[in-house]
């Protein structure tokens, strides 16, 4: 077994190559998780070391895409952390109602569960055609899954429980149809949603958002990248707008602490102050 240091050198070389060839920048991702994901991809690939994989990754886009999917895999649920969605419904929605039309950004939407959760919530709160949800992710393949809105049926039980705890107003079964072992979400939920590839590490923002959700994304970044992404989110959120982070991600101890106020303690849902 080579010394653990060699793996890390190989990993850095591979990530540097990926950045230079494809423009995807994983160099400022927190390494422990990144290393686990890369190692998992490696054991499932035909290569035995990162060095051996490097040539194929850099020359063959198909190999790169399998790596990209392995690196960006995000597991989420509909209405994950139901209390957060309950807080949005009860404390944030009353403010959102004051806008004639509403823009919501789900940054790092992965396979779309959170974006659909927001669509259901806004539909139930009567926003009808007065909102648009921008669901973005770095991985185009995972966005295709998000667009399809098809999930394994066995997940639906958990989604349903979450939905109920999150203060859902209908029967969750109204929102999907089951076929074999899959559940397809109602296509109408997609009508107000825009799916786009967007790389938080390198791309600019796109327009003034009234609510941005970026949950359990920052935990994967090193402080320098976290800083960049928070800055991007901040410039994208209109004064009086809202930012929703994961339960273990806070603005406390960041430079944005003073420009935001947490809506309910420890929910990690913040309102941007008017200058």
């Amino acid at each position, binding site marked *: *077994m080579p010394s*653990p240091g060699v793996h*890390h050198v190989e990993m850095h070389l591979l990530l540097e190559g990926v950045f230079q060839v494809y423009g995807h920048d994983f160099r400022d991702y*927190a*390494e*422990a*998780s990144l*290393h*686990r*994901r890369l190692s998992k991809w490696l054991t499932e690939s035909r290569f035995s070391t990162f060095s051996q994989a490097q040539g194929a990754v850099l020359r063959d886009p198909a190999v790169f895409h399998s790596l990209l999917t392995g690196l960006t*895999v*995000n*597991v*989420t649920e509909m209405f994950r952390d139901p209390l957060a969605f309950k807080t949005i419904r009860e404390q944030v929605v009353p403010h959102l109602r004051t806008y004639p039309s509403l823009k919501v950004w789900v940054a790092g939407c992965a396979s779309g569960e959170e974006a659909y959760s927001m669509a259901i919530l806004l539909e139930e709160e009567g926003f009808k055609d007065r909102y648009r949800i921008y669901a973005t992710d770095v991985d185009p393949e995972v966005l295709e899954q998000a667009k399809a809105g098809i999930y394994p049926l066995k997940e639906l039980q958990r989604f349903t429980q979450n939905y109920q705890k999150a203060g859902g107003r209908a029967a969750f079964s109204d929102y999907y149809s089951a076929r074999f072992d899959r559940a397809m979400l109602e296509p109408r939920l997609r009508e107000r949603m825009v799916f786009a590839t967007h790389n938080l590490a390198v791309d600019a923002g796109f327009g003034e958002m009234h609510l941005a959700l970026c949950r*359990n994304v*920052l*935990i*994967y970044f090193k*402080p320098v990248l*976290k800083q960049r992404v928070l800055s991007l989110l901040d410039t994208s959120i209109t004064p009086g707008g809202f930012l929703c982070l*994961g*339960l*273990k*991600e806070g603005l406390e101890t960041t430079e944005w602490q003073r420009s935001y106020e947490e809506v309910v303690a420890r929910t990690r849902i913040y309102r941007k102050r008017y200058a």
Partner: protein
Amino acid sequence: MRAVAIGVSLGGLEALRTLLGALPAAFPTPILVVQHMAPESSDGLAMILNTVCALHVKEADADETPQPGTVYLAPANYHLLVETDGRLSLSVDPPVNYARPSVDVLFETAAEAFGVGLVGVLLTGAGSDGSRGLRTIQQRGGRTLVQDPLEAVADSMPRSALALLKPDAVLPLSGLASRLLQLTQYSTHSTPRPTRPA
């Protein structure tokens, strides 16, 4: 020693109360703990342990540098990992061994980060989470301790580790506490005041 990592599942609350409760506030390294728990558990475990421990017990935050005399618990529904610079990080990657947090994830990343400076401790629990991680700790030169299966509320976690490796010691909780003090070279004697230069 630079850190202690503890993995525990079923029967964990009592085991942690006993083990951590026996350690002094001035314990010389940080202690990282994965206790399996339901996804929506609150941080009640930290509160309970704080009332019975001299050590400071808290839920781990991403990016924090672990301090001596402090216990860091993996938050419910997050893996707890250690970066190579010794800082903590969290992930919502898929469960490992059906568990999130998973003991293997903590042990394997802590072994990478701390190498010979790590003590891994596997306690009571159902299933087999932690065995592979404990072996990694051993392979990287760290010390490994396993709770005596005869004492454990659930013996399958300790037993599956013993099937995979020969740890440095198999002990009941009371023995584990004193072995941890020994390994981390905690001295019960007060350190002499440095003499002022004349």
